[in-house]
C-alpha cells in the first residue's frame, strides 16, 4: 500500500509536471507552420502545480531555512527537475550532432544530390536527405526516423555496447537496454552448445576404455596383520585382563561341578582373545574343578601336544579329573587353532549347537560386518559403473550421429554460401540488364537441388538433444 501511495504521488507529478510538458509540444509539432522543438522542459509557470514544495520554497527568502518536513517532497521534485534537465541536455546534444553531421553531409553531396533527385530516383537512401533541405532538425519527423533507424539496426551486437545510440536519447523507452547479463549468460552456455569435434569422440573412447576392465576394485584377502599379529596382541592383552576376572568369578558363580553348558553360556562375560571364549571356559572350568575338588594337584600334569588337548576335551562332560594346562607360549602359538578345535569338538559332542557357536566368536562377527559393508558398497559401485558404461556407449553413439549431422550441415552451409554468391551475381546482372548464361543457370539449379537433398538428409537425422532421454 505504501508503495502504491508513492506511485499515486508520482502520477500526480507526471500528469501535471514533466509528462504534460513533454507531451505538449507534440500536437503543435504536427502543425508544420509552427515547428516546436521536442525539448523536455518543466515550465516555470507550472511550478505551483508540478513542483508545489519547490514553489513554496521560492516564496521564502533565499536566506531562510527549508522546513525539514519538506525535505522528502523537495527531493522528489528536484529529482524530477534533474531528470528533465538531463534529458534535455541529451536531446540538445543529439540535435547538435545530427545537425552538424547533416551539414557536413550536405556540404559533401550538395553538388550531386539535387541533380540526382531531379532525375527521379526515389531510392530509399534519398529520404533522409530530403529533410535536410531546410527543414528544422528539431522537427518531429527526423526524430522519428532516427528512432526507427536505431531500432532496425539494433540487432547488431555492437549496438548494445555502442554509446553512439545516445544520439537519439530523447525517448529513452525506445532505447535498447545495455544490459550485460544476456552476454554473460550466453558465454556461460557456449561450452555446452559448441559443435562437437573428433576430440570429444576421443575423450569418450578413452572413458569407455577405462570402464572396459573390472568395474570395481577386488576385495583383498586378510593380510598377516589381521590374521595373526592382531590375534597375538589381543592375547597378550587378555593375559593381563582375563586372569583376574577368572579369579574373581571362581569363588562366587561356579560352585557346581560339571555345569559345562552354564560356563559356556557365560562365556561372553569373560575376556575374549586369541584363545577365544571356549578355551577360556575350558580353562576356568578345569580350574574350578580343582578348587572345589579335594585339592588334588592333578593340574600339574602337563601335555603340550595338540593331540592331547583333543583327547582331554572328550572328558569334559564326564567330569573326569584329567586336567591339562598349557604353557602360555603354546597357547600363543596355537591359540586360534585351539579355539577352533574346541568349538568343533563341542559341536560334535552335541553340547553346543552350530548356530550358537558361530555368534559366540565375536571377532568373526567383526570381520563379517566389515566385509559385508565392503561387499555392499562394492555392489553399489558395480551398478553405478555399469550404468556409466551404458550411458557412455549411448553418448558415443549419439556423438557419432551428431558428427555425421554436422558434416551434412557443413556441406549445406557451403552450398548455401555458393547460392548466395550466385544470387548476388544474378542481382548484379539484373541491374545491368544482362541475361544469365545457361551454364550459370544450370549451376544454380544443380546447387539448389543439392541444397534440397542435403536439407532433406538433415531432416532425416534426429537432433541428438531430443533423443537423449537420460538427460531429462
Amino acid at each position, binding site marked *: *500500500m*505504501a*508503495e*502504491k*501511495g*508513492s*506511485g499515486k504521488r*508520482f502520477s500526480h*507529478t*507526471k500528469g501535471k509536471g*514533466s509528462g504534460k510538458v513533454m507531451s505538449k*509540444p507534440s500536437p503543435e509539432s504536427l502543425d508544420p507552420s509552427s*515547428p516546436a*522543438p521536442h*525539448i523536455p*522542459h518543466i515550465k*516555470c509557470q507550472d*511550478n505551483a502545480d508540478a513542483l508545489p514544495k*519547490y514553489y513554496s*520554497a*521560492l516564496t*521564502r527568502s*533565499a*536566506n531562510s*531555512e*527549508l522546513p*525539514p518536513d519538506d*525535505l*522528502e517532497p*523537495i*527531493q*522528489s521534485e*528536484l*529529482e*524530477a*527537475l*534533474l*531528470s528533465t*534537465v*538531463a*534529458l*534535455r*541536455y*541529451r536531446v*540538445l*546534444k543529439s540535435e*547538435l550532432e545530427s*545537425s552538424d553531421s547533416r551539414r557536413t553531409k550536405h556540404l559533401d553531396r550538395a553538388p550531386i544530390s539535387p541533380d540526382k533527385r531531379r532525375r527521379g530516383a526515389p531510392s530509399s537512401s534519398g529520404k533522409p536527405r530530403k529533410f535536410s533541405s531546410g527543414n*528544422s*532538425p*528539431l*522537427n518531429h519527423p527526423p526524430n522519428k526516423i532516427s528512432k526507427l533507424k536505431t531500432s532496425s539496426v539494433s540487432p547488431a551486437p555492437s549496438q548494445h555496447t555502442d*554509446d553512439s545510440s*545516445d544520439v537519439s*536519447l530523447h525517448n*529513452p*523507452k525506445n*532505447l535498447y*537496454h545495455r*544490459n550485460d547479463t544476456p552476454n554473460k549468460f550466453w558465454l556461460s552456455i557456449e561450452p555446452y552448445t559448441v559443435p562437437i569435434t573428433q576430440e570429444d569422440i576421443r575423450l569418450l573412447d578413452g572413458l569407455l576404455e577405462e570402464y572396459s576392465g573390472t568395474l570395481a576394485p577386488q576385495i583383498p584377502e586378510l593380510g598377516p596383520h589381521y590374521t595373526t599379529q592382531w590375534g597375538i596382541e589381543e592375547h597378550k592383552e587378555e593375559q593381563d585382563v582375563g586372569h583376574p576376572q577368572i579369579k574373581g568369578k571362581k569363588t562366587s558363580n561356579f560352585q557346581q561341578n560339571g555345569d559345562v553348558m552354564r560356563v559356556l553360556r557365560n562365556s561372553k562375560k569373560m575376556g575374549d582373545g586369541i584363545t577365544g571364549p571356549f578355551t577360556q571356559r575350558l580353562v576356568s572350568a578345569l580350574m574350578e574343578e580343582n578348587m572345589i575338588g579335594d585339592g588334588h594337584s592333578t593340574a600339574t600334569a602337563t601335555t603340550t601336544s595338540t593331540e592331547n588337548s583333543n583327547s582331554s576335551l572328550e572328558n569334559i562332560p564326564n567330569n573326569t579329573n584329567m586336567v591339562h594346562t598349557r604353557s602360555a607360549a603354546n597357547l600363543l602359538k596355537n591359540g586360534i587353532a585351539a579355539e577352533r578345535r574346541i568349538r568343533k569338538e563341542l559341536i560334535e559332542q552335541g553340547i553346543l549347537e552350530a548356530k550358537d557357536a558361530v555368534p559366540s566368536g565375536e571377532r568373526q562377527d567383526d570381520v563379517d560386518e566389515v566385509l559385508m559393508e565392503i561387499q555392499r558398497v562394492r555392489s553399489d559401485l558395480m551398478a553405478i559403473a555399469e550404468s556409466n558404461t551404458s550411458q557412455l556407449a549411448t553418448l558415443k553413439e549419439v556423438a557419432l550421429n551428431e558428427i555425421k549431422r554436422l558434416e551434412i550441415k557443413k556441406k549445406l552451409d557451403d552450398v548455401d554460401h555458393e547460392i548466395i554468391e550466385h544470387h548476388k551475381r544474378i542481382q548484379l546482372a539484373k541491374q545491368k540488364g544482362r541475361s544469365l548464361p545457361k551454364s550459370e543457370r544450370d549451376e544454380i539449379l544443380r546447387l539448389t537441388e543439392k541444397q534440397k537433398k542435403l536439407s532433406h538428409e538433415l531432416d532425416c537425422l534426429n537432433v541428438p538433444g531430443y533423443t537423449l532421454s537420460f538427460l531429462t
Partner: protein
Amino acid sequence: MQGQTKIQERLRGIQSLIHDIEEVRSAGEVTIGKLSHSPNQTDIIKQAMQEAEKEERLIRQALAKIHEIHSIRNESRIQARNSGQKEMLRKGQLMKILQISASTLPLFISKPGEKIPPLVGCIPASPDYTAKPGDMVAALTKVSAMDKGGSDEENWIMAEVISYAHHTQKYEVHDIDEEQKPRHILSKRRIIPLPLFRANPETDAHALFPKGTVVMALYPQTTCFYKAIINELPATAKQDYEVLFEDSTYSNGYSDPMYVAQRYVISIKQKKSS
C-alpha cells in the same frame, strides 16, 4: 546536537540553491523559447546546452545536500543505537520508514556516455564489495524451528549491517524487524547489499531489471524478500516496479501484481551449481 546544526546549515543551503536553480531555469526558458522559433541554429542549441549543464549542476548540488542530511540523520541513529538506546517501532512505523527510505534513496542520473556504477538499480555490487555499517542488506537467515513449526526454513530478511569482520568474512547484521532474533552473524555469501541508488528510467532504463526477470523483492508489508517476476518497469524515478510474487496459493503460481520500490528489488543470488 552538533548534527542538528549541520542539518540546519544544509537546509539553508538547499533553500538558497533552489533560488539559484529557479534563476537559471527562467533564463533557460528564454533560450528554449528562442529555439522553438528558430530551431536550426547551432549557437542557440549550444547556449541551451550550457544552461542545461548549469541547471543540472545546481540541482545535483541541492540533491547532494539532501543526501548529506539523510546520512547525518542515519549516523546519529547508528550512534544512538550503539550507545544502547533501543528504537522501539510499531509495525506500521517500520513500514513507513521503509517506504520513505526507498523513496529518498538517491537517484542516479548518468551523464551522457557514463557507465553505470555498481549498486545503481539492477547493477549488482562487485564481488569484493563490502557493505558499510548502516547499509541495508538482504540477509539469508535460518528461521528457528520454534517459529515455523519444526522444519528449519531459510528466509531472506531485510537487515542493517552493524559490522564486517574482514578476517572471517562475516557480517554482523541487525534484523530490522525487532520481533525476531535481532542479531545475526552471517557469512558474506548470505548477504546481498541493497542498491545505494535508484536508476532513473528516463535516462538510464538499462539499469533496471528487464521485464520477465526473476528477482528477489520485498513482499509488501513484510520485511522478507521472496522470489518474484518483473511485470512492469517503473516509467519514472518515483514509480515502483510491478512484480508478481511466486505464490503457490494462486492457480497460475503467481500473485496478483504488487508494487515494490526499486530499492527492494534485487537480483537473485546465484546458487552454486551442484
